[in-house]
């Protein structure tokens, strides 16, 4: 079978035999896990970052700091596959929570991303001139309010390219979710390949889709960056 025949076979499987449904489901899941995962990650990451930069006076802030340190150490120190397996087969059954593997993946990816985003966000917050915090406090805003209204928005602007990278990493890392039985792109194309015992074209197509996704995100981040930089010069 030459290459063109293989393409024809792939087309036939996808279009005539209806495998495109599987691909679309896989694509939808891949994007869903990455997007919602990143959003959860940004929320958790921002909270951890604020805990990390807050001046430590009382026992509460010190305890919170310890908890965050352990959290980050776990999610950065173990592979995402291990976190998925532990989450899906151990933690969720133990807590008696019955949800689909997709939901488990979204949650675990969110928690994982939170650990990475926290470090990105922390460096972003530290890159903002301390005078901004002082000015907010001097006007009468509380620490938290100044942080959320004035410092974090400026930090996000500074770290947007890095946050884009985190999103790209997440998209690619979702390729391991079939360890817990969720359908993603890898799962969909493997299915097509194994139905004909012909893997070359499906896997090339899969790689292509990932590249297109990543290029799309890169473009989107560029546009957002430009928008946010509009306030810098006009």
């Amino acid at each position, binding site marked *: 079978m030459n290459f063109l025949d293989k393409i024809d076979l792939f087309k036939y499987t996808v279009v005539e035999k209806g495998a495109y449904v599987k691909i679309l489901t896989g694509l939808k899941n891949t994007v869903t896990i990455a997007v919602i995962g990143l959003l959860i990650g940004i929320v958790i990451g921002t909270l951890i970052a604020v805990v990390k930069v807050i001046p430590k006076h009382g026992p509460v802030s010190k305890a919170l700091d310890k908890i965050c340190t352990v959290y980050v150490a776990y999610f950065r120190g173990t592979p995402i596959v291990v976190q998925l397996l532990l989450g899906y087969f151990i933690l969720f059954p133990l807590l008696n929570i019955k949800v689909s593997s997709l939901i488990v993946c979204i949650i675990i990816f969110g928690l994982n991303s939170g650990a990475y985003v926290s470090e990105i966000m922390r460096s972003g917050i530290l890159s903002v001139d301390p005078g901004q915090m*002082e000015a907010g406090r*001097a*006007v*009468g805003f509380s620490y938290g309010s100044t942080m959320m209204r*004035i410092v974090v928005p400026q930090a996000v*602007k500074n770290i947007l390219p890095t946050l884009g990278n985190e999103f790209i990493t997440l998209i690619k890392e979702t390729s391991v979710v079939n360890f817990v039985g969720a359908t993603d792109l890898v799962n969909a194309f493997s299915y097509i390949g194994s139905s004909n015992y012909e893997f070359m074209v499906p896997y090339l197509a899969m790689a292509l889709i990932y590249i297109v996704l990543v290029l799309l995100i890169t473009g989107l981040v560029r546009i957002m960056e430009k928008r946010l930089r509009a306030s810098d010069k006009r």
Partner: protein
Amino acid sequence: MISVRNIYKDFGSLRVLKGVSCEIEKGEKIVVVGPSGSGKSTFLRCINLLEMPTYGEVWVDNDLVTPVDPYLHFDVIRASNTYKKLFDAAKADGTPKSDEELSLDIIHRIKEEDLLKKREGKEYKELMKKIYNDSALDINLARRRIGMVFQQFNLFNNFSVLDNITLGPIKLLKKSKEEAEARAFELLDRIGLRDKANAFPQQLSGGQKQRIAIVRALAMDPEIMLFDEPTSALDPEMVGEVLDVMKELAESGMTMLVVTHEMGFAREVATRVLFMDEGLILEENTPDLFFSSPKNERLRDFLSKVL
């Protein structure tokens, strides 16, 4: 209106303020001068607690904004176990002093030797608590009454000029957007920058930024304005426009505390000039006497260099 009582400030092992006291009355314009590193900026920043004084108290009207400093309250010292022990010991020794003399002696000794401990018994603790509960004011509330202008302007970079001015009034004073913006435009007219309302801080010159920073503070209707070297980061040709705004503000009756190197401003506007060096206020006087007949040796030295 503002009462600074014997404040000390340590940065690690470095003591920057060594017991500074100052009473500021409504309508006064106080200018603080002194060599760099003398603690004048720290003194200013201790008033709105951007720096927390290590010891001492700051009062805004009748509200205490710092924690209670037991050494400033005789009744608190008298309630402490340390005082009681010393008093009883002296009595047992058969001191010839009267109770009152002895009491003052012991208080003096406790202050000098920093004898109070963390725990000083129930009576002490309750008295401290009572003073705090009676007078303490949340610093975020106190700061609304104290406007501050920084050397580096510190306009909020993520907001337009108009939003910089209205953010505080809308979110903290709960003014309506229309009301806050009307007031903002009124203030912008006063400094002639109405056309910059929608600009972002990065698009403005230093002088413009600083005038808007002054307006941002004024929009909160403060009772007093603190200026921390407001013209030191400006190009020389922009110093005048900022000083003009400050002079106008002074004429309008605002209470002001200004740390600056502009001796001309001090002479012209101040009702009282303070000289600080090495963490202490070494001289204070009306501008006339301050510049014409300085008494302190170091002030004479300082003035000979800057005038």
